[in-house]
């Protein structure tokens, strides 16, 4: 440091402190703005949902929810909504079970064994990522009509499982890889066979993670629009129902429907937040 006079030396650290303070203010402000960018639109939807149908159509809008449940009541009473909700939930649950049931064994195999064909299987999984999967609904619609799976919960759940399966495989792969093989081996030397060791040692340790990935599969199915709209006619899911009635339904029905779509997603993302990054970290490979 070459400082000519003591005053300069004294004022320089002060400047640095000021600059740093200003920097952290800008930082905090940007974080706040970005949070607002995400939250405010959802808030607007909430206000609309908690307004009466008349208030929804009114102008200008209030920015504080009037806590009128008219829209929601209208939505609940609208014919077909109950069924659509039930279908959405059923398809999502079946998707969840199928994708974990089929994906977890594959994830376990990838994490525990070296075998011929492992690379080929990984490529198959990665390939699904480069394909616009909802398009599968088109050929499957034909296939399902032939096999009687058209317009059924199972049929749609199969398409959604194709969407969720690659994730289920990769996520469970990372979960199982996180459990040291030695734990399983220790169980074998202590009297367990493979199945017992899995049940008594591996399963309790991965269960929270498996639950998170099951929830993830649920959300993928719950939110899916295109395949649901193509494959269901009588047994519409909520997304298919809302899409079909976009042109004809009144605003308050759309908003209440959108809100009902959003709420479970919010809860689910909150429930799996701890696993979100671990899941995607491994999905990089």
């Amino acid at each position, binding site marked *: 440091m070459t400082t000519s006079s003591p005053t300069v030396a004294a004022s320089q650290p002060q400047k640095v402190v000021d600059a740093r303070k200003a920097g952290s203010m800008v930082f905090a402000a940007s974080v706040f703005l970005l949070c607002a960018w995400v939250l405010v639109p959802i808030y607007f939807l909430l206000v609309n949902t908690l307004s009466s149908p008349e208030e929804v159509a009114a102008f200008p809008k209030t920015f504080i929810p009037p806590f009128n449940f008219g829209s929601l009541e209208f939505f609940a009473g609208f014919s077909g909504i109950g069924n659509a909700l039930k279908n959405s939930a059923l398809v999502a649950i079946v998707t969840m079970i199928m994708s974990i049931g089929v994906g977890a064994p594959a994830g376990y195999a990838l994490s525990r064994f070296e075998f011929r064909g492992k690379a080929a299987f990984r490529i198959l999984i990665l390939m699904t990522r480069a394909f616009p999967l909802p398009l599968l609904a088109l050929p499957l619609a034909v296939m399902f009509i032939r096999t009687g799976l058209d317009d059924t919960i199972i049929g749609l759940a199969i398409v959604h499982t194709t969407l969720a399966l690659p994730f289920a495989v990769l996520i469970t792969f990372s979960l199982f890889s996180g459990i040291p093989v030695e734990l399983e081996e220790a169980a074998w030397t202590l009297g*367990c066979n493979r199945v017992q060791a899995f049940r008594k040692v591996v399963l309790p340790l991965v269960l929270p993670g498996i639950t998170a990935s099951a929830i993830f599969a649920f959300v993928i199915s719950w939110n899916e629009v295109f395949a649901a709209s193509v494959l269901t006619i009588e047994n519409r899911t909520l997304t298919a129902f809302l899409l079909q009635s976009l042109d004809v339904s009144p605003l308050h029905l759309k908003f209440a429907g959108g809100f009902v779509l959003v709420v479970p997603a919010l809860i689910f993302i909150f429930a799996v937040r701890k696993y979100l990054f671990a899941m995607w970290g491994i999905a990089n490979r």
Partner: protein
Amino acid sequence: MAEIQIKNVAKTFGSYQALHSIDMTISDREFMVLLGASGCGKTTLLRIIAGLETPSVGEVWIGDKRVDHLPPRQRGIAMVFQNYAVFPHLTVFENIAFGLRMNKLDDATIKERVNRTANLMHIEQLLQRYSGQLSGGQRQRVAVARALAMEPDVILMDEPLSNLDALLRLEMRAELKGVLADSNTTTIYVTHDQVEAMSLADRIAVMHEGRIVQANNPVEIYRNPAAHFVGSFIGNPPMNFLNATKGGKGKWNVAGKSFSGPQSGQENLEFAIRPEDVTLNGGGLDAKVRIVEPLGAHNLVTCDVDGSLFRAVIDSDSKVKAGEHISLAPMQDRIRWFDPQTTLAVA
């Protein structure tokens, strides 16, 4: 009774041969240490005995039962793993009881055995804790207690102390020796640490590149290495090796000096001597001192003898300095000879 016999066991991973036809018998209640550098096949051999790997060829016998086709649970073994493998979702008590419950023992017996082994390993106050609340040393104790509680015929240990810090390692080493001596089990212990091997073993099997180079008691391994590798691997610092050329019947020229050695037909041999087996007497090998490292009780002197690296351990009172020429006289009865072609010892 649990004698372990390994007959002609070999293991290949793809094109890599990890083990070349191993033959070994470990007698009942013996403490056998498999010693070698990483990648020498010692852990693979242990895992084959445990049943965690299957041998490509060969047989494994425990007692009078052939076991190489049996899963680990049917072999009457217990194992302690390098990173302990204490189940994180179970308490210490349930960890130790795990194998006993699998064997469907009644609760009273389980309780009795868990408490006994926990006392033995001094972890009786930790029984209700989880692995996450334990230190490395405590986890190690749990892992050993869990193996002992099984009252197995054979205990297999895979580098059990390598993750502990130096002081703790010393303490656990002595404790393990005591506990295992009282337990009447046959022990096979894998390590890369020769001091650990020396201090624990009844017998050491030195492994190198998938083969057992020498299996004998520690003193014998140290004093009479069966091959160049053993001499260069065991001992810190290791043995010194110098070229020897034939100088007449039973006479060998080493760095300009003549020594009496084996009466061999060969023209060249390897002369070997341990650093502590030379004295600072006249008439010995001429050595140019490169580095002097005081180690307290004695000095480690690194020299140049006839263009080769040569280390000597000498009394710390001697005033040897770098750059000096000194004379190092090997003790005649400690000199060993190796065949440079086969690398085996020549008597």
